[in-house]
């Protein structure tokens, strides 16, 4: 039965409908794989096998009655940032110790409504703050990939490290993830998976633990572009409970994906050619350009002059919004409480013990830039720079349909390699963060391998709400790259 875990969602849905195997068998195959691999990978921080089998049984009944939903019987991993009713949700922070939400996030509700099965909750950087999944209270998640001939443990990227690792190691058919500065696309690139960050407002944020509300957006991590389309189809919705969710119909992404790319114009932003970017990344990018030319697309060099300011602006906006969002964790309403001499002391003790070092660092930066006398110099300035960044994209998108860039400046790095210097860690998001600042959709697609045998990804950036063009161009890369190697199953 082990081959069931190698199916894409699209293949599995066909097999389930044809009665080749049951949803319970399909789910059990994943539960067995979790049992076998999770000790080594630490991707799932809370497997929910009983719930999974119960949901799979209900799926089998619906399939039997001919009432299968779009994701009927498909076992998913859920990033532990999504609130799941009566199932512990912690954002991988000690401060949410034992929190069991009395409600379900809109995204997960949509997924269960479509028949998906929950395998459990996935690891992430604490409150989604990180690029390596090393800041989780539940310990780091490990990348199933290793360098050729080297047993060093590598990071899966972050913050959706658990999602990426679990999908890459076939512990789940697909996973939910979130992206504030690159947290879907960077881990997808590091693990050879497909990561799609939709346009801001396409997917409801309701019931997702908030990090930076003007940037956060949920999306899927999958093993194929078609699966990404299917997941987005179900995750996207207009939601009255999130005022920033956009009231426009969700198009049929699978139809959009089948359209031709001939005649499309692909923009190549010259500012993404940065110092210190490896030659193999440069070569991969060039390869991508060739693939699009062969597919009949036009390729054009373009300029996004404010690119280099996106990351510093992000490190004002994101911490500022985080410091405000995380003010709710006070030892009173839920989670950890550490008593003190008085109420202020109790707040300070609870937050000191509940938050990890990176979260504290960002709360303090955010508090500083929002404090009296500094608001204009920092937050307002950063929001104006954001307008400049968006104007760059608006201008370029008059002439091109999508932009092609590398996803990351390097392949996955080793555990502990970048934890010493926060700024060095932040630079990981240099190619992904611009997309969040402008609210655009972006996708990372596996496109090749490094000289050390690690996966590398290419990123496509689209116009607002043009996920359809992203998916069809992503498909070109997927097809041109062909069958890419899978990680060796060193975990037993």
């Amino acid at each position, binding site marked *: 039965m082990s081959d069931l875990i190698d199916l894409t969602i699209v293949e599995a849905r066909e097999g389930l409908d044809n009665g080749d195997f049951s949803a319970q068998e399909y789910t059990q195959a994943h539960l067995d794989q979790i049992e076998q691999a999770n000790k080594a990978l630490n991707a799932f921080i809370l497997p929910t096998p009983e719930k999974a089998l119960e949901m799979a049984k209900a799926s089998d009944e619906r399939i039997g009655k001919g009432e299968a939903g779009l994701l009927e019987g498909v076992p998913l991993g859920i990033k532990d940032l999504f609130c799941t009713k009566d199932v512990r949700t912690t954002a991988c922070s000690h401060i949410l110790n034992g929190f069991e939400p009395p409600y379900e996030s809109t995204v997960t509700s949509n997924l269960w409504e479509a028949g998906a099965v929950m395998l459990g909750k996935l690891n992430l950087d604490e409150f989604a703050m990180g690029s390596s999944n090393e800041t989780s209270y539940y310990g780091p998640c490990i990348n199933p990939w290793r360098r050729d001939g080297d047993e060093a443990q590598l990071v899966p990227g972050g913050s959706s490290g658990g999602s990426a690792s679990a999908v890459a190691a076939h512990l789940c058919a697909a996973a939910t993830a979130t992206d504030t500065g690159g947290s879907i696309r960077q881990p997808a690139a590091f693990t050879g998976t497909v990561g799609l960050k939709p346009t801001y407002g396409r997917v409801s944020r309701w019931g997702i633990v908030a990090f930076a509300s003007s940037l956060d957006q949920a999306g899927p991590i999958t093993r194929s572009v078609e699966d990404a389309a299917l997941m987005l189809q179900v995750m996207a919705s207009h939601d009255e409970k999130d005022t*920033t969710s956009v009231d426009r119909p969700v198009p049929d992404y699978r139809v959009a994906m089948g359209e031709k790319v001939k005649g499309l114009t692909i923009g190549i932003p010259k500012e993404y050619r940065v110092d210190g970017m490896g030659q193999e990344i440069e070569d991969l990018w060039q390869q991508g350009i060739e693939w699009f030319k062969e597919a009949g697309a036009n390729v054009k060099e373009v300029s996004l002059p404010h690119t280099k300011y996106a990351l*510093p602006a992000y*490190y004002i906006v994101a911490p500022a919004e985080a410091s405000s969002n995380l003010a709710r964790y006070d*030892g009173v309403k839920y989670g950890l409480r550490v008593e003190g001499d008085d109420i202020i002391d109790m707040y300070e003790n609870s937050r000191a013990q509940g938050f990890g070092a990176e979260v*504290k660092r960002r709360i*303090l930066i955010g*508090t*500083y830039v929002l404090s009296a006398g500094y608001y204009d110099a920092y937050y307002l300035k950063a929001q*104006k720079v954001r307008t400049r960044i968006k104007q760059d994209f608006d201008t370029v998108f008059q002439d091109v349909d999508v932009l092609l860039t590398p996803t990351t400046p390097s392949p996955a790095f080793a555990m502990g390699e970048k934890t010493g210097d926060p700024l060095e860690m932040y630079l990981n998001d240099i190619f992904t963060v611009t997309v969040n600042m*402008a609210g655009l959709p972006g996708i990372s697609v596996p496109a090749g391998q490094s000289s050390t045998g690690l996966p590398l990804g290419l990123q496509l950036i689209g116009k607002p709400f043009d996920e359809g063009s992203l998916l069809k161009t992503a498909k070109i890369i997927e097809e041109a790259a062909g069958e890419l190697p899978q990680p060796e199953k060193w975990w037993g």
Partner: protein
Amino acid sequence: MQINEETVRKIAHLARVKVTQDEAKALEGELSAILTWVGELDEVDTNDVEPMTSAVETAMKMREDEVTDGGYAPRVTKNAPMSEDNFFVVPKVVE
């Protein structure tokens, strides 16, 4: 932008996070480095530029001012570290 340990302590108190002597020392360097780096933004001309408020032009949605949810205090207080009769319990704040 260089900030000193006293400023770190002041911000930490504003953020209601207790910091140890060692943490304050380390944060002094880390926060200064980050604030110096974000200072790069001063190079960008933002005269006559409106701050970005949303990715796509949208009008604020309005709805009727009426109660649409609630009435389940036990569920709301279920996760509280301390609660009594559906109230959150905090240390004494008024003498």
